[in-house]
């Protein structure tokens, strides 16, 4: 029996048991589709997080007061307290390091903003002119805090604040009062919405000196550093630690977080998650494989007389084995193809429903889904096909 004839004959058999075949193909397809869709979801989430991180800056390092409990964990530093203060002097020192392109010191607080006859509490960021490039922020109108004019009473408004306070008139050049001080609006931030849990639309930015004065502090909340290049990130981190250790009397009391490290951590977590859901989805494929095995065993039993007949008219055991085998290959193949299409469709619907989520199934997942479907389907058929091949012709023929 030629290979083409084997495939064709078993294909016709698959077609003639329509409902049975449809059910198996559906089970297989759902398994493959769930692998594709779930990995699309997982990988989409991963890419979403990576995009979010990239949007807050490139080659970014964050210096914060306090030492991480365990090296490599930034959580300890975020949660820990009572470190020695970071000061503007520290920030200027870091700005002079050869690996550092620019830096932006950061203070955060809250104050009452009033103008015309409006009043509301806002989040206040104190920083310098380089905050815009370091943090990848964008201006909608006007200008940001000018270089070397930290003592000018300028204020930059978040998009929403500007809209609220000056719905009709031009915000630039307006006088506002923040806390007890007066400021002139020099710029308005472009609307960016939420980014890493921080809504830049509802903040105001003032020069760092004013902020320190207003909140009556000399310490900084963070120092944002942009390294000169990607390769400079690690050297910059070491240089920063060394420089601050020296100026802090030999104490290592700051933590430097690199964007890269955070990204890598998230990347790892989300990648593992994607693998995990893919694995769970793959279990449904194994279940489908068991279904194939069961159906093929029933088929062998049902077609015992037919197998006997085939042997009587000259089929060899391996002809019989191949026929049943090919049947399983067709079923698994159809299930895999149909499932891939279904999975792509599902991912497309995810992307339509959540446009910000890049839910594309990774190529490896699609290929793995199809392969696992084919392999389980075929493996599940080995035993039934062997049973069929080993049937005794005379006894098989006498079975009704």
């Amino acid at each position, binding site marked *: *029996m030629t290979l083409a*004839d084997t495939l064709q004959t078993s294909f016709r058999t698959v077609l003639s048991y329509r409902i049975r075949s449809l059910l198996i193909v559906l089970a297989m397809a759902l398994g493959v589709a769930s692998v594709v869709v779930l990995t699309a979801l997982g990988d989409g989430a991963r890419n979403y997080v990576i995009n979010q991180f990239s949007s807050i800056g490139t080659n970014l390092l964050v210096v914060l007061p306090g030492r991480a409990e365990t090296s490599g964990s930034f959580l300890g530093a975020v949660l820990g307290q009572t470190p020695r203060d970071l000061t503007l002097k520290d920030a200027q020192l870091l700005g002079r390091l050869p690996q550092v392109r620019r830096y932006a010191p950061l203070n955060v607080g809250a104050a009452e903003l009033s103008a015309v006859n409006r009043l509301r509490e806002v989040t206040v960021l104190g920083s310098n002119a380089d905050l815009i490039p370091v943090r990848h922020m964008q201006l909608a109108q006007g200008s940001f805090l000018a270089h070397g004019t930290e003592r000018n009473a300028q204020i930059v408004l978040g998009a929403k604040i500007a809209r609220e306070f000056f719905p009709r008139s031009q915000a630039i050049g307006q006088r506002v009062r923040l806390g007890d001080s007066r400021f002139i609006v020099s710029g308005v931030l472009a609307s960016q919405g939420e980014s890493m849990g921080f809504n830049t639309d509802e903040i105001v930015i003032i020069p760092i000196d004013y902020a320190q004065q207003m909140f009556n502090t000399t310490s900084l909340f963070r120092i944002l550093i942009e390294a000169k290049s990607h390769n400079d990130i690690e050297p910059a981190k070491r240089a920063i630690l060394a420089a601050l250790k020296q100026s802090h009397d030999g104490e290592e009391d700051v933590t430097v977080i690199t964007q890269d490290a955070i990204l890598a951590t998230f990347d790892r977590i989300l990648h593992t998650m994607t693998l995990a859901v893919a694995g769970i989805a793959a279990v449904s494929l194994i279940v489908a494989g068991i279904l194939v095995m069961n159906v093929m065993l029933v088929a062998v039993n049902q077609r015992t007389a037919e197998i006997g*007949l085939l042997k009587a*008219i*000259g089929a060899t055991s391996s002809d019989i084995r191949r026929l049943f085998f090919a049947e399983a290959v067709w079923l698994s193949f159809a299930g895999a193809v149909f499932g891939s299409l279904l999975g792509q469709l599902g991912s497309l619907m995810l992307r339509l429903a959540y446009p910000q989520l890049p839910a594309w199934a990774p190529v490896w997942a699609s290929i793995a889904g199809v392969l696992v479907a084919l392999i389980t389907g075929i493996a599940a058929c080995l035993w039934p096909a062997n049973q069929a091949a080993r049937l005794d012709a005379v006894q098989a*023929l006498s079975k009704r």
Partner: protein
Amino acid sequence: MIRLNAITRTFHMGDQVVHALNDINLVITSGEYVSIMGPSGSGKSTLLNIIGLLDRPDSGRYELDGRLVTDLPEIEQARIRREKIGFVFQSFHLVPRLTAAENIELPLILSGVPQEQRQIRVDEALQAFELKQRAQHRPAELSGGQRQRVAIARATIMRPSVILADEPTGNLDHQIGAEVMTLLENLHHSGTTLIIVTHDRELGARAHRQIAMRDGKILTDQSDDTR
């Protein structure tokens, strides 16, 4: 030429031993028309299965066309079944989901005959067995006589030298049975060796050589000229 030498076939049913064939010696020359008769359980089917290489004897020698076939490997035996032997069964054994034409085509597919040739040969067979109108019908849509005609067409499509028919008329009424016998006898007239198992004395008597079996042994073996 079929030559059976001291063939035995034993079945074990629990601790009971059944000698289905007990020291059978038999020579059937090419082109003979032989009927095998005997009560149920006398070993007729077992004998036919061994001649058709569907079953192996426990001991004895079987030569087909001068070649010892008893101990051939499975693949070789399958090939001989394909090329030299045609089986016809009492219950037809058609594949229910295939059409008449597709059932007839099966042995050609197993032998790897190319598609175009298969088409031609199946058409010829449908013509010869007056099944042209029924080519696309499934077995369930055919009468008993038509089903057996399909089965005979299938058994002969490879032009075998031996036709083995195990009670081919057992499921047919008398008249249709006689028609089927005529078809089989026509094959004999064109040179095929024809071996028919039947328990119908009248049909059995149409053969030129009649073998009677009982308890796995050949009781009588008569040829027309010696009668």
